[in-house]
């Protein structure tokens, strides 16, 4: 081989090799991240991807999933053209049609449902990727429907609402100034790779780390000074018990409590019901461990807490558990203080960047308000606090047609596998919808049920607006042309706005104009942003967030204080039984009758993160799939011995509503009685085991991470 040939094989960028480095972002996971990527492009094709060193967010780092971006973009199951169903729903038989035909069909079908049943009978739903949501949200409202819904109804919104009704807003850990890091459910290696450096730095300067988790993890091994291996679903009890210890031992910051909080006496009374011995029994932790953790957290100077987006709130007692944990921050005077947890409101699409955009106005200033959204009647706190559907009620509403029928779904990235009782949902959609249009990158299980399928392109094939921590904004440029006939989601929406002649000049003017409208006043325009390959510092951005502003100006709650006793919850009709205090109850309380207990003795926790997976988005990425080829549940070694299970055995996991077959892996990282199972597999969709009514009454969130099940070995034939 010549030297040049060697360089080409090794993909060395340069004029001689014809390999160009072009910049974009990875949008495989949640928009709370989205790292900058360098795409090595040769002859219009990406041949390698790595993190952009100069990117102000990820500084060259990519996680496992992002490292596989090329393999994700070129997945074999990419949708190629618009397709019209020709077989039965679910059969997956389609014929290719043109974009023009597709747009006409959509305009006609949605128009017909609107005419027959009213605009609210069309639900506009979104799964991943989330980047186009402001456009779809506005589109939904302009079309005339109140029913915009996303996977926020099972993602992190429960935490967001819990924060809101307690402290008026959420607050992130101020790692740089903390002496102690309380890593509640913290496993940055798997789900937040950029956060690990912060923990490493804190440790390096002598800081202490407490990790509370139901499984031993690399983070607990590598960083925890104290690791509390807690019984699943009992975090709320632990938080209340820690509260009691902090109060009883005089470790509370009473000056802070008196000045800035509301409802302390009621909270104290609640905590009093959780003496150490009781908490130890509930949580499975030793009394000394709990004491040491509470003491370290409360007495070692500034302490910040990791609030996991969904690990806790995926228990039916999770909303309150999260509130109880947040309360510890106020109790110890760490909320809105340096080294504690500091509020930092999002600028655009979940990302805080130190300035305001008009995203919320863009989404909501055309809200029709003509009916109550899906789920509103069952989950009044959700409805009061969050301007989307609580789609856990979608299945019931489809089946019963009450309070009004849902007859069409126009969805982008909708993933039925993220709903409990997936198969029942798909069946109900098949039987009750007049029209189901789905836009997606891939030929998914849900796509097979659609009447019309539209191919979307990936993040590297489009331009998009994105804010970043540090006061940055960017508008990316495509690094390759959209594959096949795929189009950018937002272009599809704006095209449709024109074709359907919606009453909104903004949407009709296209995505970039919409972005300009949202960012107006920040000192930059889309045209400015497009001049740079990297995020641009926004002139008006104030970064970093300065602690103490809320303490100075008041909390955004009704009382203007941090509410141990939530007035927002107190306002909800008492017949729903929602307690203004963060009370603890059993995470399986709806499944604890003797019969169910006996038949389903295991605690099933689904979706505990692993580094290579996020929902179902990476299961079909060959490189990532090769890291764990088979859907696999993790079973405690002692349980496995008792049941005669060995590594690699095929087992059936089953609940009262469903069963799946998976491989079994023995582990000693979880406690006996617990089973972990990753969700999102077509061939082993564990969400079919979760009953539709196993929900947290505060948020409507399903108990994905706390649910009864059983396991049995499947004999090979």
């Amino acid at each position, binding site marked *: 081989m010549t030297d040049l040939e060697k360089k080409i094989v*090794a993909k060395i960028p340069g004029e001689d090799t014809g390999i160009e480095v072009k910049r974009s972002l990875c949008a495989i996971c949640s928009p709370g991240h989205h790292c900058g990527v360098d795409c090595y492009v040769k002859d219009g094709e990406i041949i390698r991807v*790595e993190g952009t060193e100069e990117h102000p967010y990820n500084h060259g780092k990519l996680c496992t999933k992002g490292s596989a971006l090329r393999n994700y973009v070129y997945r074999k199951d990419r949708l190629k053209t618009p397709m019209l169903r020709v077989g039965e729903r679910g059969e997956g038989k389609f014929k290719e049609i043109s974009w023009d035909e597709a747009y006409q069909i959509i305009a006609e079908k949605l128009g017909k449902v609107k005419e027959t049943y009213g605009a609210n009978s069309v639900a506009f739903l979104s799964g991943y990727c989330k980047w186009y949501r402001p456009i779809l949200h506005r589109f939904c409202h302009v079309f005339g429907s109140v029913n915009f819904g996303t996977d926020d109804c099972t993602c992190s919104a429960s935490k967001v609402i819990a924060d809101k009704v307690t402290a008026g807003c959420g607050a992130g850990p101020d790692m740089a100034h903390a002496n102690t890091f309380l890593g509640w459910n913290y496993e940055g290696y798997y789900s937040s*790779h950029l956060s690990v*450096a912060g923990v490493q730095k804190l440790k390096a300067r002598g800081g202490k780390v407490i990790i509370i988790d139901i499984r031993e993890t690399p983070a607990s091994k590598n960083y925890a000074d104290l690791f509390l291996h807690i019984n699943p679903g009992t975090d709320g009890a632990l938080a209340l018990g820690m509260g009691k210890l902090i109060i009883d031992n005089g470790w509370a910051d009473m000056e802070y409590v008196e000045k800035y909080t509301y409802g302390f006496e009621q909270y104290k009374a609640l905590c009093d019901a959780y003496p150490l011995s009781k908490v130890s029994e509930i949580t499975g932790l030793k009394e000394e461990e709990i004491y040491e953790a509470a003491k370290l957290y409360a007495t070692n100077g500034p302490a910040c807490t990791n609030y996991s987006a969904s690990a806790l709130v995926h228990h039916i007692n999770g909303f309150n558990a999260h509130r109880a944990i947040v309360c510890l921050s106020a109790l110890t005077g760490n909320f809105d203080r340096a080294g504690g947890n500091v509020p930092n409101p999002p600028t655009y699409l979940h990302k805080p960047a130190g300035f305001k955009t008009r995203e919320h106005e863009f989404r909501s200033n055309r809200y029709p308000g003509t009916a109550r959204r899906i789920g509103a009647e069952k989950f009044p706190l959700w409805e009061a606090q969050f301007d989307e559907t609580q789609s856990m009620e979608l299945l019931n509403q489809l089946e019963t047609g009450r309070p009004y029928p849902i007859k069409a779904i126009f969805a982008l990235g909708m993933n039925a596998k993220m709903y409990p009782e997936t198969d029942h949902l798909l069946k109900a959609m098949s039987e009750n919808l007049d029209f189901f249009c789905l836009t997606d990158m891939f030929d998914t299980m849900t796509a097979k049920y659609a009447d019309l399928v539209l191919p979307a392109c990936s993040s590297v094939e489009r331009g998009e607006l994105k804010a970043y921590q540090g006061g940055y904004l960017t508008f990316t440029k495509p690094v390759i042309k959209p594959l096949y006939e795929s189009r950018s989601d937002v272009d599809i929406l704006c095209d449709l706005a024109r074709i359907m002649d919606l009453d909104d000049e903004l949407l009709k003017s296209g995505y970039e104009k919409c972005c300009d409208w949202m960012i107006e006043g920040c000192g930059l325009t889309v045209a400015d942003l497009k001049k740079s390959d990297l995020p641009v510092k926004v002139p008006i951005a104030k970064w970093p967030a300065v602690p103490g502003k809320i303490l100075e100006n008041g909390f955004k709650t009704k009382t203007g204080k941090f509410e141990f006793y939530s007035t927002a919850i107190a306002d909800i009709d008492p017949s729903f039984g929602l307690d203004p205090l963060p009370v603890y109850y059993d995470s399986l309380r709806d499944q604890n009758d003797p019969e169910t207990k006996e038949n389903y003795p295991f605690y099933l926790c689904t979706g505990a993160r692993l580094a*290579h997976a996020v929902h179902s988005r990476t299961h079909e990425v060959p490189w*990532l799939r090769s890291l764990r080829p088979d859907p696999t549940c993790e079973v405690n070694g002692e349980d496995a011995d008792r049941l005669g299970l060995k590594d690699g055995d095929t087992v059936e996991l089953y609940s009262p509503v469903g069963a799946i077959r998976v491989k079994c892996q*023995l582990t*000693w990282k979880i406690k006996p009685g617990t089973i972990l199972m990753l969700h999102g597999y077509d061939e082993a969709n564990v969400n079919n085991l979760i009953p539709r009514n196993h929900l947290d009454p505060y948020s409507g969130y399903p108990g994905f991470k706390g649910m009864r099940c059983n396991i049995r070995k499947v004999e090979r034939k």
Partner: protein
Amino acid sequence: MKYTFVFNPDLCSSCSSCVIGCMDQNDFDPESGDLPFRKTFQNEIELADGSHYSAYISAACMHCVDAPCIDACPVGCLSKDPETGFTVYDNTNCIGCKSCAMACPFGAPRYRKSDGKMVKCDGCNERVKAGLKPACVKACSFGALQCVPEEEFLAEGSAKACNVLIDQLGLRRK
């Protein structure tokens, strides 16, 4: 400048970014049945007292200074790159005899079924020569896997070298 791969198991989570980086660099096709050059290991190893040690390890060719595979190869495929010090190869004459695999204490060389030849990690030799990091190192977000100039490595002491990653069981428990 010669380089040494340095792996610190106390920073590793077996997240396998390094493996994916290697796959991307080397156009890995899982359907071929081959294995990537870099592998991660995540095992729970039973200790004498019945408890379990959780291992998180990333491993590929260690680019041993005194690489036994080089001497073991009967046709002389393997050699040291004089510039980087990596153990590189030209498998034109490879006969697939697996002598290198037999010599390697780390299981680094792999027999490729499709053409019956041996392949292995070459340390991303060309990338390093071009001033880039090896693909696996570039993909590691946690500082667990690094590739440092030999002088720097020697100056820091060899305690964390890949090829002294010979942790005795039970001694590493915290």
